[in-house]
């Protein structure tokens, strides 16, 4: 053990610091016993360094390993998958510490550390997390440098300063790679962390679902408009429509998920904007009606929502244009009308009776809708995040008993009534409004902006959107949820720490908005700097570029760089200028290929004599070349290097083309 180079103190210190820094961001998804494991292993390693303890024996190592494996299994219920995998990785990262005795081990540990830093991006990729990861990387670099230093260097600060300056020097290279390196599609699909994309709209809606979102301040998406931000009451971000009702909850129909472009006519000026959405775990994208998206990946579904093939599992940026005044499926009755009239066989008898009665008095569908809205407006309906519980006939109970609910209640009930009256209608779920950030002139839409409204179909006008919530609580649409719930304490009840709760304090709000804008920039320009953005950026700089040209350009650039490096390293201009020497090197290489290598201190003649013994058939040619070489080099008889190269060619001809040994073996 002592014969191998040990691990210097400096390196060990930085390795321990790096471990803490690497593990820290993982703590949110690590079981607590990992901390104990780290403390134990770290103090053990320190005792080993102080020669107060021994390295663990192999049975103990095996025991620790199996123990850690069981620990992971019991705390995560599995040994595979992202979460368990990361715990396993961190456990291995910690256990390797006590086993680390040679420099090689320390290097393994350091590389493992780099990998663990990368895995933390799977859980958190915000600006802060990105900046934070510079700390563990610096410490790991310092550990790496410390490993190469003499054990006499005991002051840790110069080492970390060197690591920091190395990191700073790497920034230009990092930027170049970031800007130009082609984003390759992953070779295998990366597992997504389970705690991401969990909040948000689901593909079904029970009355309380959207109310639950009202308690979350988590970001849903951010929008930058190309022009001015339109007024709030136009900002109905459609996510998905619910067409099926089973008496309790509304859900998406299968037919609406078919990629079949609906018919619509553009009217008015389009509104263009770009959206960066947070991972939602669902395939749909958010847009104002009626959208058109530049990306080929997403397309308009039959019910006018945008959908892509895969769920959105990482932040996604896309450009869209919307025609707010477009007429949708106005010319002919669409196939979806049948689904838009579906109701359960039974249940909610009072509502059904009331709908029939209303319809009888109203005749025209439009009059019916107006009457319904008026009903919501005039009767004492109450908008709340905490609706009282209802029985099995939820629509009956809501309309006639409790009369208080959230947007989902109003939208669901209104759709039910319209359907019962024979007017095709469906619930649209999405987000409404959003917070304008003056610092960056964009709109942040959060989970509490989730909303549900109604659209119904009438001949010649097509689908028309209507928001019953507006009749009950117009401030919800005009100012936002917080104002609508001013009397309740339920807004953001689940998020006591959220900065949003303190937006009454002026400077804190300004700070919050600035910070939000910074994060948005990070997302837009760093995390989302993917294929399309990259090629756009490159096009702006270099004109039209396709992937092939970019690839070729990169290869060429790499080639040039390698060439320059090679020039600097090998210094060909210092190469053997004299021709004799160059020919002799060739002679040497030729013989070396046949197994005769010249020793460093061996003269030409002794080498030739030795080679002649090894290759007796070619001996005359070898000796002829060398005596010619000697005559030129030492006797300075002639300068005719042609003779020398001729002799070399003769030798080359005399030698078999391939070295003899492999040929025989073959």
């Amino acid at each position, binding site marked *: 053990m002592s014969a191998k180079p040990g691990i210097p103190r400096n390196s060990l210190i930085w390795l321990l610091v790096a471990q803490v820094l690497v593990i820290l961001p993982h703590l949110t998804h690590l079981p607590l016993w990992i901390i104990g494991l780290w403390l134990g292993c770290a103090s053990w390693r320190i005792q080993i360094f102080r020669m107060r303890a021994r390295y663990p024996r192999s049975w103990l190592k095996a025991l620790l390993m199996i123990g850690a494996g069981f620990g992971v299994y019991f705390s995560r219920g599995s040994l595979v998958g992202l979460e368990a995998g990361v715990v396993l990785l961190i456990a291995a990262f910690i256990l390797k510490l006590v086993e680390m005795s040679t420099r090689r081990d320390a290097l393994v540990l350091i590389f493992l550390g780099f990998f663990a830093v990368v895995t933390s991006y799977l859980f958190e990729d915000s600006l802060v997390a990105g900046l934070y990861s510079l700390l563990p990387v610096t410490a790991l670099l310092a550990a790496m440098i410390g490993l190469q230093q003499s054990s006499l260097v005991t002051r840790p600060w110069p080492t970390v300063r060197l690591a920091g300056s190395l990191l700073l020097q790497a920034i230009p290279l990092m930027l170049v790679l970031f800007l130009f390196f082609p984003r390759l599609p992953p070779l295998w699909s990366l597992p997504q962390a389970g705690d991401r994309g969990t909040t948000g709209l689901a593909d079904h809606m029970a009355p309380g679902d959207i109310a639950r979102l009202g308690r979350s301040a988590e970001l849903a998406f951010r929008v930058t408009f190309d022009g001015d931000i339109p007024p709030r009451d136009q900002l109905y971000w459609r996510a998905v429509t619910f067409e099926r009702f089973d008496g309790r909850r509304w859900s998406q129909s299968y037919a609406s998920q078919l990629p079949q472009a609906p018919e619509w006519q553009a009217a008015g000026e389009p509104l263009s904007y770009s959206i960066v959405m947070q991972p939602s775990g669902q395939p749909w994208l958010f847009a104002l009606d009626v959208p058109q998206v530049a990306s080929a990946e997403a397309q308009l579904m039959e019910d006018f929502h945008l959908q892509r093939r895969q769920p959105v599992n990482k932040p996604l940026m896309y450009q869209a244009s919307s025609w707010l005044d477009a007429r949708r499926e106005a010319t002919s009755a669409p196939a979806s009308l049948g689904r838009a009239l579906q109701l359960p066989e039974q249940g909610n008898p009072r509502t059904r009776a009331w709908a029939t009665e209303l319809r009888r008095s109203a005749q025209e569908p439009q009059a019916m809708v107006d009457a319904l809205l008026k009903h919501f407006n005039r009767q004492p309906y109450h908008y709340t995040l905490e609706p009282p519980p209802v029985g099995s006939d939820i629509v009956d109970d809501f309309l006639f008993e409790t009369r208080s609910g959230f947007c989902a209640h109003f939208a669901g009930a209104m759709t039910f009534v319209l359907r019962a009256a024979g007017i095709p209608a469906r619930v649209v779920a999405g987000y409404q409004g959003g917070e304008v950030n003056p610092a960056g002139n964009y709109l942040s839409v959060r989970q509490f902006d989730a909303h549900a409204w109604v659209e119904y179909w009438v001949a010649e006008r097509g689908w028309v959107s209507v928001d019953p919530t507006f009749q009950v609580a117009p401030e919800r649409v005009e100012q936002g949820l917080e104002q609508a719930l001013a009397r309740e304490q339920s807004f953001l009840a689940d998020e006591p720490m959220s900065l949003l709760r303190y937006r009454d304090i002026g400077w804190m709000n300004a700070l919050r908005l600035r910070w939000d804008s910074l994060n948005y920039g990070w997302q837009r320009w760093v995390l989302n700097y993917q294929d399309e953005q990259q090629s756009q950026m490159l096009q702006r700089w270099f004109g039209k570029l396709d992937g092939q040209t970019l690839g070729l350009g990169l290869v060429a650039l790499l080639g040039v760089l390698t060439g320059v490096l090679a020039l600097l390293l090998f210094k060909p201009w210092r190469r053997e200028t004299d021709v004799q020497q160059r020919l002799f090197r060739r002679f040497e290489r030729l013989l070396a290929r046949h197994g005769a290598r010249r020793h460093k201190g061996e*003269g030409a003649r002794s080498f030739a004599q030795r080679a002649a013994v090894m290759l007796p058939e070619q001996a005359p040619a070898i000796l002829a070349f060398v005596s010619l070489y000697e005559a030129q080099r030492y*006797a300075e008889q002639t300068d005719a290097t042609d003779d020398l190269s001729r002799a070399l060619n003769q030798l080359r001809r005399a030698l078999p083309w391939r070295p003899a040994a492999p040929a025989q073996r073959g």
Partner: protein
Amino acid sequence: MRTRLDACLRAVNEVLLGKEAQVRLALACLLARGHLLVEDMPGMGKTTLSHTLAKVLGLEFQRIQFTSDLLPGDILGTSVFDKDSGQFVFHPGPIFAELVLADEINRATPKSQSALLEAMEEGQVTIEGATRPLPDPFFVIATQNPVSSGGTFALPESQLDRFLMRVSLGYPAKAAEKALLLGESRRDLLTRLEPLLEHDELRAIQDAVGNVRVSDALVDYVLRLVEATRTQPQFAWGLSPRGSLALLAAARAWAFLDGRDYVIPEDVQAVLPTVVGHRLRERADATGHGGGALVQWLLREVPAL
């Protein structure tokens, strides 16, 4: 000339059996106008070697047995008052011979040693104000016994440097020793030896040796060797320019003996151990005996081409 030289070598080898390499080196040393230090145990043929060389080359031979009471005058000679002429007459010492054997040189006091060494370097002696040239050719073969060193004065490095080569004869091979035991007495053989070379011829050969061609490439090799002794950490000190000159001169003679009129790296390598071995010391053992390991390192590690 080459054939005459070969004949000389053969003749010496007939007397000194199985020592071809050392004989060749000794001859090369003489041809390069250098002096030879032979280091070996008593009875290994040191005297025979010098005597035979003198005989074969037709050189006048003198032997000085160095002892602790030897005085410089005993080497150089003294002026003695001549009663008949009433004048001091100079009686030349044994140094005024063409080949001088300084036997057991380390037994004499430094004063006597330096008298000899000065004469070797200058080629002349100055006694009582008069400078007297030594004969030409002038060749000194000094011997010393490395084993019984009690009461001796080891030669300092500065004086070792005056010898072109230091050779050691070593035990003869079995066959050679058998031939020696079965054959005639060496002394009888010696008396029967005929000189094979005239003085003029020897001088011409020595001149020719000086004209052996040394190319740029070869000088570069010698410079690399010298540079290595001066820069590598294991050398206590580097070779002096006198050392590099000596190396080149010996290599020329060796090339000449090999029948070439130009020097190749192998010539340098052949003479390297004997020419630089006594001029180098290891840093770890600066007062030690010699640099045999260092020479091996030079041969192995310094690029020959």
